[in-house]
């Protein structure tokens, strides 16, 4: 297939998603591989994607400054939950695939094409996912130039693709906030898609703080260390990262409760 970077890599002997030794998964293991909270939701201007910054292995906090919301190109973002090694490799492959396609074919890969690329990688990864060594359940969000609107998709670890019409969540902290998003969308003062940019950012901060309250594998906000979640906004102008300064002031004014 013309302009297919993954194919080119495979011709060079590269293999994506190598399964480790398959073994019985033990209780609690599924929790380990999903230790995180990522979310994407619509707002007036487009789509907001956010993720906490904690990386865990079992009960151990490995790192508190992980970036789980990664830009694939100027118009699309992938938020990752699952085994980081596989997830980062996926992002690297996708980033190069989109660039390679654009540069060889002299046109941008279509939004549909990008979605397929994510699915294909997850499918190649099935063996590793089932062996328990490489399960990834990402959220893909991007601006569809043909339709002129930002969209959200989420995937299970086997590569099935679902469109998140209003929002999508993934990771171990996601059950906590899924209900809140559903409630907010139906009975909140305004539906998710109606909220303004600032409201969306405040909601994202509050949701991740909630997730961290009930899930030890989610980092939330660490005010003392000035550690804020990564929040990216996808609009017709492309992808923009919200600066830490802005996060800090929003957190101080709208999230902290001084009792």
């Amino acid at each position, binding site marked *: 297939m013309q302009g297919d*970077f993954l194919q*080119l*890599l495979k011709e*060079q002997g590269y293999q994506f998603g190598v399964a480790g030794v398959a073994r019985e998964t033990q209780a609690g293991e599924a929790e380990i591989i999903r230790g995180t909270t990522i979310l994407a939701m619509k707002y007036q201007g487009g789509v907001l994607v956010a993720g906490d910054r904690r990386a865990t292995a079992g009960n151990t906090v490995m790192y508190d400054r992980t970036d789980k919301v990664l*830009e694939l*190109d*100027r118009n699309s973002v992938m938020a990752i939950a699952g085994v980081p090694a596989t997830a980062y490799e996926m992002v*690297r*492959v996708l980033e*190069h695939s989109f*660039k*390679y396609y*654009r*540069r*060889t074919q*002299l046109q941008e890969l279509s939004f549909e094409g990008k979605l397929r690329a994510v699915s294909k990688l997850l499918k190649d990864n099935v063996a590793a996912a089932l062996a328990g060594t490489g399960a990834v359940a990402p959220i893909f969000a991007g601006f569809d130039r043909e339709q002129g609107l930002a969209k959200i998709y989420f995937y299970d670890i086997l590569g099935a693709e679902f469109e998140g019409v209003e929002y999508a969540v993934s990771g171990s902290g996601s059950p906590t906030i899924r209900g809140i998003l559903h409630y907010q969308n139906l009975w909140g003062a305004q539906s998710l898609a109606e909220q303004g940019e600032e409201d969306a950012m405040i909601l994202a901060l509050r949701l991740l703080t909630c997730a961290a309250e009930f899930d030890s594998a989610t980092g939330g906000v660490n005010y003392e260390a000035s550690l804020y979640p990564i929040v990216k906004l996808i609009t017709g102008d492309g992808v923009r990262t919200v600066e830490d300064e802005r996060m800090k002031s929003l957190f101080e004014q709208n999230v902290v409760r001084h009792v």
Partner: protein
Amino acid sequence: MFEEPYRWVEAVENRRQYLDEQFRQGSPVVALSYEKGILLLTGSRGTPKLYEIYDRIGLGGMGHPADLEKLRFSLLEMAHLEGFNRSPSDVTGSRLVKYGLAPVIKQAFEEIFKAPFIVKMLLAELGHTSQKDCFLTINYDGAFEEGGACAALASTSAIQAQMVAYVKKESEAIPGSLPEAMDLAVRAWALGSLAQLKEQEDETRPTEKPTLDTGTTPSTTVSPDRNILLTHLRAAMSEQTIESAILERNTPGSSRYRPLDPHELTRLLPKGLPSPVN
């Protein structure tokens, strides 16, 4: 019959003449550094001649479109495999040309039973500062040159040298802004294009052949007068359009290459040219 060494030399010489003939009508390419990036510019009759190769590398070409495509693809493959397997900062124009492109082109040129690549290529690599910008040109026989500040492609190396000398003479320091860079680039392009035209006229004129061209004193020196160059540019634009792209030093994201759209070009080009906007 090619087993005899001198026949082989003769065959290579014939091949040179044949190839030189192919570039006669081609449009020159100019690439030059300015403070905020690199500008690439050429005249086009429909098929594009400027391309993105990697995050910080742009390509300009002259010659047969099919050959250019073939080599462009091999450059893209090399660059992306290297960038993926090592890192994007390990992808350099210099390595792509010296170890990737040049041996392939040279081999095709010297295998006299097979068709050579009808191409001349220019690679511009954006540095973190303008002093680190790097330009490489490669000829149809695989010979390459590397330099800073600017580079050019034209039908002969004498004309290329003339264009480069013009750019260097016209701006002691490199241009500060994109409009200044554009102003200089279009003049350098016009100079090259005019020199090519002159050369064609000289050759069709039935005079005795001039003494061997040493390259230092080209027989087709063109007056670098601004008005003459702009007049020629206007005339040339009746059958071509300007194609231009930039590599931007300070832009967010990893991909720094961007073609200039017709509206931007209209703003940047000297007034009185037919607008590229239909």
